[in-house]
């Protein structure tokens, strides 16, 4: 039904933050990542505690297109191999996936909230303009 994937060489520098490198076939993959990316003017390590539920981006639903079920699809593999010479990837992160092999059903989701946190206004001359 599915083809066999043949890869000669894989070079991946880093796999971080629910990134996945999967070799081999999968039936189902469900991946979720929630990240709070905070740039702070300075920090006190170990004193940080922010609940993700305070932010709307982690609770609101993301519209994902639904796959229609095509029952009449027929696949004929004249060549049963997918061949790739070399894969070179610097980074895989935030519920991203490098999958060598076939997969039946895949659902990935990620949410990121960015915050730039200053203790004093970085541009005091533009404060009256509301920037």
């Amino acid at each position: 039904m599915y083809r066999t994937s043949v890869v000669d060489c894989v070079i991946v520098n880093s796999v971080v933050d629910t990134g996945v490198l999967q070799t081999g076939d999968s039936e189902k993959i469900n991946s979720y990542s929630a990240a709070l990316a905070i740039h702070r003017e300075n920090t006190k390590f170990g004193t940080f505690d922010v609940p993700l539920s305070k932010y709307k981006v982690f609770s609101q639903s993301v519209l994902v297109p639904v796959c229609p079920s095509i029952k009449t699809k027929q696949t004929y593999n004249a060549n049963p191999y997918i061949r790739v010479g070399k894969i070179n990837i610097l980074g895989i992160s935030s519920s991203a996936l490098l999958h060598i092999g076939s997969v039946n059903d895949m659902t990935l989701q990620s949410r990121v909230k960015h915050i730039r946190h200053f203790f004093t206004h970085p541009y005091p001359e533009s404060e009256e303009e509301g920037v």
Partner: protein
Amino acid sequence: MKFCVTNHELFVGEIHIIGVSLSSVVLIGDSDCISLGSAFDTPPESLVIGTTLVPL
């Protein structure tokens, strides 16, 4: 509707990628169903000034 697919030879020499992030996928293989979703929030209000970081 009748949907017929014939897969002939597929041979890729080299793939070079800087980054795969935020629910993206690099798939060397076949798949029936892929659904990906991502929410990325950087509005102007994300500039927080002061000591209270968490919204009330």
